[in-house]
């Protein structure tokens, strides 16, 4: 099935839903729906970034002082991990489009492993903070910092927590897609679902690209 000839005789009718005219319309609708969903996700995170900018406007010195407790090397490592997972995800989508099922499956599992690595690194970061007594909001019992440290760490946990939750959701969907891919469901005709999962994963990576400098590299 690795031939790249025109959709190599895969019967379109198999995947066509009853209310669509043809596959092109169905794929285009799927992608448009996904992009609208991504637009909505972006605005969902915009609320968090707004809270970050507002808190930073109110307590600049707290941010300068409190961010030293964040280990930027782990943050950088996580960024590299997520960017690599974005690469493998894009390669997986490319595999699906070119009927290269082997590369699709291999890259999907690579992405899942990298996502787990991201979560493990995050787990170490969180436990390191809990040991220091740095807990979100009013449970803060960490070191004395000028201004309102509970605001910075409250925000830190909400931002990275919400992003982590989206990574977990991503992993769940990726595992489901990987299992389907192993059954050979996806090929050059029916690959919209893989592409949509890829778009979602790239968005999660996009959010982290902004989160990393704003939280870890505050100067």
């Amino acid at each position, binding site marked *: 099935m690795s031939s790249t000839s025109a959709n190599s005789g895969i019967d379109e009718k198999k995947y066509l839903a009853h209310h669509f005219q043809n596959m092109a319309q169905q794929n285009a*609708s799927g992608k448009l729906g996904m992009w*609208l969903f991504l637009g*909505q996700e972006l*605005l969902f995170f915009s609320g*968090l970034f707004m809270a970050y900018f507002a808190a930073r406007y109110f307590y600049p010195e707290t941010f300068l002082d409190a961010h030293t407790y964040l280990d930027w090397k782990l943050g950088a490592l996580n960024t590299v991990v997520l960017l690599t997972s974005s690469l493998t995800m894009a390669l997986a989508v490319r595999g699906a489009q070119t009927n290269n099922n082997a590369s699709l499956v291999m890259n999907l599992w690579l992405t899942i492993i990298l996502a787990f690595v991201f979560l493990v690194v995050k787990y170490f970061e969180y436990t390191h903070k809990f040991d220091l007594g740095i807990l979100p909001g009013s449970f803060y019992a960490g070191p004395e910092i000028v201004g309102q440290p509970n605001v910075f760490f409250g925000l830190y946990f909400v931002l990275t927590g919400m992003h982590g939750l989206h990574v977990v959701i991503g992993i769940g969907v990726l595992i489901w897609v990987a299992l389907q891919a192993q059954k050979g469901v996806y090929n050059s005709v029916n690959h919209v679902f893989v592409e949509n999962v890829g778009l979602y994963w790239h968005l999660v990576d996009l959010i982290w690209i902004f989160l990393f400098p704003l939280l870890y590299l505050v100067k």
Partner: protein
Amino acid sequence: MFLSQQRTNSAAADASGSEPSYLTAKRGLMSWLVTVDHKRIGLMYLVSVLFFFLVGGLFALAVRMELFSPAENYFSADTYNKLFTLHGAVMVFLVIIPSIPASLGNFFLPLMLGVKDVAFPKLNLLSFYIYVFGACFFLYTLVSGGLDTGWTFYTPYSSSSSETSVISSTFGAFVLGFSSILTGVNFIVTMHKMRAPGMTWTRMPLFLWSLYATSVIQVLATPVLAITLLLLIAERTLGIGIFDPAMGGDPVLYQHFFWFYSHPAVYIMILPGFGVISELITINSRKHIFGYKAVAISSVSIAVIGFLVWGHHMFVSGQSEFISVFFSFLTYAVGLPTAIKVFSWVATMYKGSITLTTPMWYALSFLFLFSIGGLTGLFLGALSVDVHLHDTYFVVAHFHYVMMGGTIIAFIGGIHHWWPKMTGKMYNSAMGNLGCFLTFVGFNVTFFSQFLMGSQGMPRRYYTYLEQYETLHVISTIGSQVLGLGLFVTLFCFIHSLMAGKKAGKNPWGGLSMEWETESPPIEHNFHGQPVCERGPYDYGK
């Protein structure tokens, strides 16, 4: 509009309609609960929205009864606070936001586009169940001590000093937001990717244009409400200290977050109402809409400018005077397209051939009530006058004229208009007109007196008030009884029609848009062949 029949080789019987309608095609409760047919989902939404409209309405009657006199009439202060809060929350999140798009929109979008179903039928059913899931949280809130923060959940009252179940109602509103987002995504994709051949953007009925503008707002604004409510829950449980000043937050920041969603939300509420009114006035005056492009473009421009004006809710809230000037100017900018729409509707009726069916009576009362609602917005947009009028009964009257007098009247008019198509039965128009008349009179008596109260300085959300406002409160309470009666008469008219209504033909009002091509009630996959669209939906007369 020639319906060129492309013979479908499916096993459909001949076009004479011996095929069962979508109501009788499948039987049993399960066929309804797991249906992906947009028409059935539309009906399920309609029933649940009307149910919550009844619940919200009863809260409103209770509030008005309590305000009959300044003394403590029926409820204690806390119960009163819960009553007006739940009236606001149920009406906003459960009734008026999903009302027209989810019920009439779901039902008629595919029919008007000439396609079999919306782009993502399963997603459509999922958004209905998300709506039900969110509604359960509200019902749980009713049971577990209510909510007394006002539907706006302003911090720090909602995050630290309210002992009522704020978390369950905020989470309920958060979940309902997703139902609204997914409906918006569904509609935008359907309108972009699925159309009858020949139907260009300028040949679409204006109801679809307004649904498109509404869906754009739903997709772009609702997530900000979702994150605001999540942050509020985090604030109340973890105390992260963004909104609550005791922990270092800023309450005005919460108001920015909240109103960034809630002002576009009021356009989510009114735009579908505009769409319904464009349909009602053109069909009942049997005349082409005046200025199709202007009306269509003004829907979309209202949607876009609607994102720039949220600060006019916060002129006196401690927001800086400089930015208030900016918001006041843009509020007047968003007033203009609305005025253009109203003028176009009136101009449409010029030289038409107007029949006074019940939907037309609702359209006329919409024009009357919405004009008052829209014009009183001018007072609240002016900076100096708003200082006096903000958070008084003037504001209460203004938004009831726009929301109840606008969207709900258009919604009921739309139900009357499409009732024969949805149920295949006609309603008794005398009873419908009586309901409309009583609602109109009751509404004006209730809320026009509140304009006077408000400008005289009667604050909002007051359990007891100064004696000087008592007479106006009495008038308003009597008006609310008449309004309630009018709505019950309308409800009875619908139920009566379901029982004993005459059989309705394919096109009782002589409409030209595509949904009148198929039977009433339509067959399961809407059209026998694939209808082709040759000309616009309003090309009456030559």
